[in-house]
């Protein structure tokens, strides 16, 4: 009886001691909530490591599934552990309006490379009361160039054209991005999309467009899924985040191509939860990471566009050392021609309603 008990004790002790942060608390690092995968890696390389080198302040990037739910719970209970979070513009807008975020004064931000004040250097929507943009990501159509034959899709409408381009379609299981794309695929110009979506007829039109390809849809939720679906041949074309498609093409050599027509982009950036343990360090990190050089550096890792004019000029080559990134960014001028910016205000108003309608529609199988 004695020996096994001692073994058990030794084993548990070894396990306990091997877990960081259990036995001894280190110096508390700046805790940053972020999205995981390549995105976290890019932020580590472009922001966190240089920040620690410059200031000596350790940074810990933490991957979470749903930063907004976590922040709301933490702030509501007065028990905040995160100093900073990477969120979409719409979420930041909402958290800010509900008093769950610390305001960020744009005056603390670094000026552009040519001395332009930050407020003029950022893209429209890049700065808000509690929000500073770090990147522009985009939902685009991706396809496997080796599978579509000689005739390549060249417009968003082709995604909805099952006759010309047969095969299953990967679609994001959320109303956001999906309804916008359905309308644009039905011929609505980008600047009319939200006006249409605000009317019952416009909504019906979007759902009717989705109905037309419904039997061929494979739904996805997490960012890595569509790329996987494409790689496995489960779909012929899919909605996907541009960065994921880019990485699959240049890191893994997949023959994936991006259709930029009708891309829907959203701005992502930092927000500080109200009552964060170290607001001043968080602000310092925000200012550091949103200077043009780190933003360009992050874009080089991931192909998400930098949200500052002066940073765009600084973007060089991808980490493979050959690929020029500029034409692969959502913010490249030729890619922006028929692009749509997500309207954060529209979605804060209609998210719940459209999610219900979308779910009802989905369930009507």
């Amino acid at each position, binding site marked *: 009886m004695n020996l096994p008990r001692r073994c058990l004790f030794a084993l*548990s002790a070894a*396990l306990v001691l091997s877990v960081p942060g*259990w036995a001894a608390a280190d110096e508390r690092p700046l805790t940053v909530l972020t999205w995981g995968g390549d995105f976290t890696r890019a932020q580590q390389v472009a922001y966190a490591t240089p920040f620690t080198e410059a200031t000596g302040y350790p940074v810990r990037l933490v991957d979470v599934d749903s930063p907004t739910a976590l922040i709301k*719970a*933490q702030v509501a*209970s*007065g*028990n905040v552990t995160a100093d900073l979070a990477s969120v979409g513009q719409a979420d930041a807008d909402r958290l800010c309006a509900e008093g769950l975020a610390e305001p960020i004064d744009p005056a603390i931000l670094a000026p552009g490379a040519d001395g332009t004040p930050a407020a003029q250097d950022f893209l429209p929507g890049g700065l808000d009361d509690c929000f500073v943009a770090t990147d522009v990501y985009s939902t685009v159509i991706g396809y496997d160039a080796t599978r579509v034959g000689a005739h390549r899709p060249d417009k968003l409408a082709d995604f909805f054209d099952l006759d010309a381009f047969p095969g299953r379609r990967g679609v994001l299981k959320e109303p956001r991005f999906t309804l916008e794309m359905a309308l644009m695929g039905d011929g609505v110009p980008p600047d009319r999309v939200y006006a249409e979506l605000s009317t019952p007829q416009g909504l019906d039109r979007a759902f009717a467009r989705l109905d037309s390809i419904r039997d061929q849809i494979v739904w996805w939720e997490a960012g890595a899924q569509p790329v996987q679906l494409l790689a*496995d041949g489960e779909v012929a074309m899919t909605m996907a985040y541009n960065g994921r498609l880019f990485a699959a093409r240049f890191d893994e050599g997949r023959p994936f191509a991006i259709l930029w027509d009708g891309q829907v982009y959203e701005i992502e950036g930092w927000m500080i939860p109200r009552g964060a343990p170290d607001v001043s360090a968080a602000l310092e990190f925000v200012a550091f990471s949103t200077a043009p050089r780190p933003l360009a550096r992050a874009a080089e890792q991931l192909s998400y566009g930098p949200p500052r004019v002066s940073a765009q000029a600084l973007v060089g080559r991808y980490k493979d050392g050959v690929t020029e990134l500029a034409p692969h960014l959502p913010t490249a001028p030729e890619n922006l021609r028929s692009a749509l910016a997500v309207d954060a205000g529209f979605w804060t108003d209609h998210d719940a309603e459209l999610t219900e309608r979308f779910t009802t529609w989905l369930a009507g199988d």
Partner: protein
Amino acid sequence: MALPTYATPLERAWHWAYLAICTAIFVFLIAPILVIIPLSFNAEPYFTFTDRMLALDPDGYSMRWYDSLLTFGMTRPDAPRDAAWWADVWANAKWVNAAKNSLIIGLFSTILATVLGTLAALGLARPEMPFRRAIMAVLISPMIVPIIITATGMFFFYSNPCEALTWIGLSPQCGRLAGTYLGVILAHATLGIPFVIITVTATLVGFDQSLSRAAASLGANPRTTFFRIIMPLILPGIISGALFAFVTSFDEVVAVLFIAGPDQQTIPRQMWNGIREQISPAILAVATLLVIFSITLLTTVELLRRRGERLRGVTPR
């Protein structure tokens, strides 16, 4: 299940059809679990048998997915595999850390559930126990209440455990349990308790109370009676209850999703991420290891059950 000699031809035919149906159902039960084992040795990143695998070509098989369980998350996966490499594995590899977390959380929640559960089962087994049925119903309910409801409740409660005290007019702050090991351990202990209660009370049903009376009449104090008489007899029940509690914790993902922090990544949570995001054969390698693990546990429980029945003199059913 021999066929009686007076069976008609129709009955004979039905008998064989019946055996065929049963075989098919057994295949349905077990095949999915067995299929993933060879697939985890696939040399290609696919979830199906490649031609080379079917031809039993050794090149069609590889250990690469098992290897990736070690290297995933390492800082320098390509370094030579010396002591420093293994230290890197131990400290940084995500699956290794997940396994450590699962074991720690499983171990402590099991101890908690088993100790509390056994005590309670002893009380519940007494004929004098008041409100036996109602209390039993409450103690078993964590197994019955949908896990999403439990996890949602815990999500709020563990963010600020003292918030409930505002009901009685206090407004204290007492730290948080969400995102801590303690929080996950408490949650998993709660979920494991019903299993301990069920198995230990089942063992106590067959327990002959006159044995403890005999011990008492021979001068043993209650402590001695418990450890020398009762404990050895119900130990198989306690251990299988503990194993159930451990497996519950080891397999639990919803509560972890809602209340654990990034430090408490467990194996199921890591699998959940893997399945939702990038399902690679590495998941199958983990699954295979877990199947081997469950076979071990199953064997242990079966042996214990038989031993328990022998000890208590219950004839095997």
